């Protein structure tokens, strides 16, 4: 079964989210359908994919992402993720996914204590899942980062397990593709910029693919994630069932 209709993405909005309209702009440009879902909603509605965008959900009070986890819509996001639906958490969305237990680890204050807003090279180490399946291992992409708390942390056993199960999908790199301290913008352990869950359908990454979606923005490598998703949806009969 193939999907003729345009992909439908639901972009979750918490109080303090700031990147939701950029995702909608990308969806519009691609001819997709996008719906903004307020955090108090109980249902996602018809969805092929869910995005948790960047920002400062609930003011990031206590810890980044800690309060967003208890927003009513998160139960629906968790159910969607556990059913295998594609979920992307970018920046603050990544922080929310770790707090919600959908991804392991935590994001701590950048090691230099500065908010870092810049273009960043990333190396794709495993091209898995709906969001990165269209890339190839070793590909270098350039995306913006914009965060003060992006230092990925997990205990050594978790890091080893993530690596051995090919779940560290994106690492901060220098322009040559080497994962070095100089290419690491926040002190993340093992240069980790993005990970997926065991099943591969939930991706958390600190960079912003939606802000690299047009050459006029300085780059369009972010579109590769959206193209991956579209291809993945077309290949998944299950995705069509979720549309019902």
């Amino acid at each position, binding site marked *: 079964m193939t999907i003729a209709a345009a992909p439908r993405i639901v972009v979750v909005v918490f109080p303090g989210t700031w990147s939701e309209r950029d995702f909608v702009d990308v969806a519009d440009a691609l001819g997709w359908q996008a719906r903004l879902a307020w955090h108090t909603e109980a249902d996602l509605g018809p969805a092929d994919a869910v995005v948790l965008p960047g920002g400062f959900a609930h003011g990031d009070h*206590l*810890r980044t992402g*800690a309060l967003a986890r*208890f927003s009513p819509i998160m139960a629906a996001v968790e159910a969607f993720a556990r059913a295998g639906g594609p979920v992307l958490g970018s920046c603050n969305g990544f922080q929310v996914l*770790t*707090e919600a237990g959908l991804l*392991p*680890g*935590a994001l*701590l*204050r*950048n*090691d*230099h*204590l500065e908010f870092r807003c810049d273009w960043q090279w990333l190396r794709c180490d495993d091209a898995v899942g709906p969001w990165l399946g269209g890339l190839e291992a070793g590909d270098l992409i350039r995306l913006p980062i914009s965060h003060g708390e992006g*230092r990925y*942390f*997990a*205990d050594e056993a978790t890091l080893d397990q993530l690596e051995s199960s090919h779940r560290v999908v994106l690492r901060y790199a220098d322009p040559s593709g080497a994962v070095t301290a100089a290419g690491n913008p926040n*002190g993340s352990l093992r240069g980790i910029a993005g990970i997926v869950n065991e099943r591969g359908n939930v991706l958390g990454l600190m960079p912003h693919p939606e802000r690299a979606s047009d050459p006029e923005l300085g780059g369009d490598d972010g579109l590769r994630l959206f193209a991956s998703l579209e291809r993945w949806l077309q290949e998944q009969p299950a995705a069509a069932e979720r549309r019902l």
Partner: protein
Amino acid sequence: MRWLAEVRVTLRPGIADPQGETIASGLRSLGYETVTEVRAGKLLRIAFEIDDAASAEAAVEEMCRRLLANPVMETATWELRADEQQDADGALP
């Protein structure tokens, strides 16, 4: 009965604490050259109503576990006491 909990949340030992390191460096630059380490954390004062001491202790433990500390990176310790002299306006000390 009203209870007061003072919860301290700190990064687990061994996790780099750049805030603490920066504060330590600030203290040393002020002349406190013997300062070897500072660890920063959060202090949360919580007032709540519950019947007895055992329930109060269990409630604080649950609050820490469910929200106040993220066990991936933090630990929480607390002191709990009955609020014998409640302020009329209920304000925390």
